[in-house]
């Protein structure tokens, strides 16, 4: 990351951290949702943007984290432990699933992940003793931390997810992941351990939504199978990353920011139409800016042979 990027990042973080001092509760809760989408978009970017394994079911890990968080809070665990365990449980679930599904390439992986989300929702519906089934879990306000705790935790998760992607992006691990994306067979031939790399990326990208899900349930206080494993959440992650720029560090941040802001302005005016308008915007970006909004910035960067210098280091 260049000095200028670091400066921008530091300014953004400082602004976000200072916001609760001046903004109303409503604006804080809007920003909280924005941070949530940044973290989720980065998680999706980590597996799908970097390795090219497109996941249509990342909401499954979000839902698992949300249920884990809700149940742990009910059992009397402190909120921070519920968040940490939400991440760990989602990661633990993702490892065997990754081992199985990452053997599939192209559309098969995408469909397997889509199925995973559906299966998770059905399990949550039928496992009544644990999840209370379709009745859902309602958390008492006494168990929940205040808005500022949720705000800073979500901010921290967004920063952590972005930093993780930035760190992976510039290192050898990131290069290997991108090699897999470009040509998996060739990457294997030159000695990249594709299985280990894919699995590590997958588990990391599952831990983030796990933690985010736990914070989300602390914020909304109610959870049922259809809100935990929402198909629309899968789509949102993908849309935001594609909007900003797939496989880049700043793309998901930019995409989440733009999409959330536009939605906020549109939905009050056009309740039924706002998603259609967003869809039209996405079409325009995909058609005219295939690399997302980031490609406008990246055009300049391509002049500098950064990758080569890093390789020779």
């Amino acid at each position: 990351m260049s000095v200028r990027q670091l400066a921008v990042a530091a300014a953004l973080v400082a602004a976000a951290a200072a916001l609760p001092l001046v903004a109303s509760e409503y604006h804080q809760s809007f920003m909280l949702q924005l941070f949530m989408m940044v973290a989720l978009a980065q998680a999706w970017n980590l597996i799908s943007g970097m390795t090219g394994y497109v996941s249509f079911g990342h909401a499954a890990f979000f839902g698992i984290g949300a249920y884990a968080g809700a149940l742990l809070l009910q059992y009397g665990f402190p909120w921070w432990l519920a968040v940490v365990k939400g991440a760990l449980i989602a990661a633990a679930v993702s490892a065997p699933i990754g081992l199985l599904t990452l053997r599939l390439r192209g559309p098969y992986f995408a469909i397997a992940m889509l199925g995973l989300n559906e299966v998770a929702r059905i399990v949550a519906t039928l496992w009544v003793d644990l999840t209370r089934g379709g009745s859902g879990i309602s958390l008492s306000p006494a168990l929940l931390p205040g808005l500022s705790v949720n705000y800073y935790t979500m901010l921290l998760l967004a920063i952590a997810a972005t930093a993780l992607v930035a760190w992976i992006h510039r290192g050898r691990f990131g290069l290997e992941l991108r090699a897999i994306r470009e040509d998996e067979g060739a990457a294997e031939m030159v000695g990249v351990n594709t299985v280990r790399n894919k699995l590590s990326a997958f588990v990391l990208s599952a831990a983030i939504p796990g933690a985010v899900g736990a914070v989300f349930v602390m914020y909304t206080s109610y959870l049922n199978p259809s809100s935990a494993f929402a198909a629309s959440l899968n789509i949102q992650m993908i849309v935001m990353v594609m909007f900003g720029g797939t496989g880049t560090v700043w793309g998901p941040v930019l995409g989440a920011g733009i999409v959330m802001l536009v939605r906020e302005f549109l939905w009050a005016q056009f309740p039924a139409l706002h998603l259609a308008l967003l869809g039209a915007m996405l079409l325009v970006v995909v058609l005219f800016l295939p690399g997302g909004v980031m490609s406008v910035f990246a055009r300049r960067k391509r002049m500098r042979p950064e990758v080569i210098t890093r390789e020779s280091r």
Partner: protein
Amino acid sequence: MKRLWLLMWFAGFVLAAVGGAAAAQEVVVGTSVALTGKYDRTGREQLQGFQMWVEEVNARGGLLGRKVRLVHYDDESKPETGAKLYEKLITDDKVDLLIGPYSSDVTMAASTVAEKHNFPMVSSGASASEIWERGFKNIFGLYTLAETYMDQILEFGKSKGLKKIALVYENTAFPRGVASGVKAKAKSLGMQVVYEEEYGKASTDFTSMIVKIKARKPDMIVGGSYLPDSTAFVRQAKENRLTAKIFAFAVGPGLPDFGKNLGLDAEGVMGNTQWEPTLNIPGAREFADKYKAKHGHEPGYHAGGGYGAGQVLEAAVKKAGATDRDKVRQALFDLDTVTAFGRFKVDATGKQVGKPGYTVQWIDGERHVVLPASAATRKIVYPFKDWAKR
């Protein structure tokens, strides 16, 4: 350019000042209902009923002499969206009064937000008793509870000497509430649930279930259902010649579509309703006529509930003499009033205990209230006619 900016600044200040002055004279009421998603139709009716109250109260001179303004959003039938919207209504729109959303699951989420802000909320669209079992102090219901839906029908069956009940229900919040009520009531009446099965949401094939039910020879078939599943069940019961003395289902038979879709097969099927325009309640007929003139169809209980929720708020604010949260909450707890939707009286948890439920039955192609006898528009038809002799 510079002048233009100055002008805009000035206009902004003027607007803000005017807006501030207007706000001081208004009572702002906030709500979210589903305008999209699976509760779209019922949510819209509830909103229309509520909007009619807003128009009328303003024509009467408003609340405490202040004009009532409604702020409403679409919760997309999703609990998580509902939670966000109530957060927005309370902290951003800074509403004075709150009306709950439609459906038990969205209400579960929205009422937690209201509780967090200690903001009283009048709920007209939820009946699952779990909502009132969480120790909250700010959620006041209008609907009779799901658990009591089948009580009158079971009591009627008992009076005819019936003993064996077959119970089927969908696996979501409201139908599960209906079922647990049936089981408790059957036990207290000394009746026996000889068959019980829970089915997945959106199931429409009940053939295997019906075959198993036939083997148990029940006197009554009771379903915790919505419209599509109750319709499909009756159709398949006929195909498989399932017989019993009473067929009763939640939600479905209370809607006109039930009779429209089933025709002769709907004859004799019983169901439940929270409210009907034909009930002998002061104001019910007047509301129904005005609603029909405006929207072109008779209001169902969802519209009636929206209108009633407005009247409850009005009575509470009048009693409190202010829109102050603590005073309104106390007034809602103390209130015992009759709206066009029926009596409103809650217990210490905020749950409705004053309004009875009603039983409907399809007779001669029309939906009639048959129980309790005091509200009946037709005499109950018993027993359920043989499928072949219709």
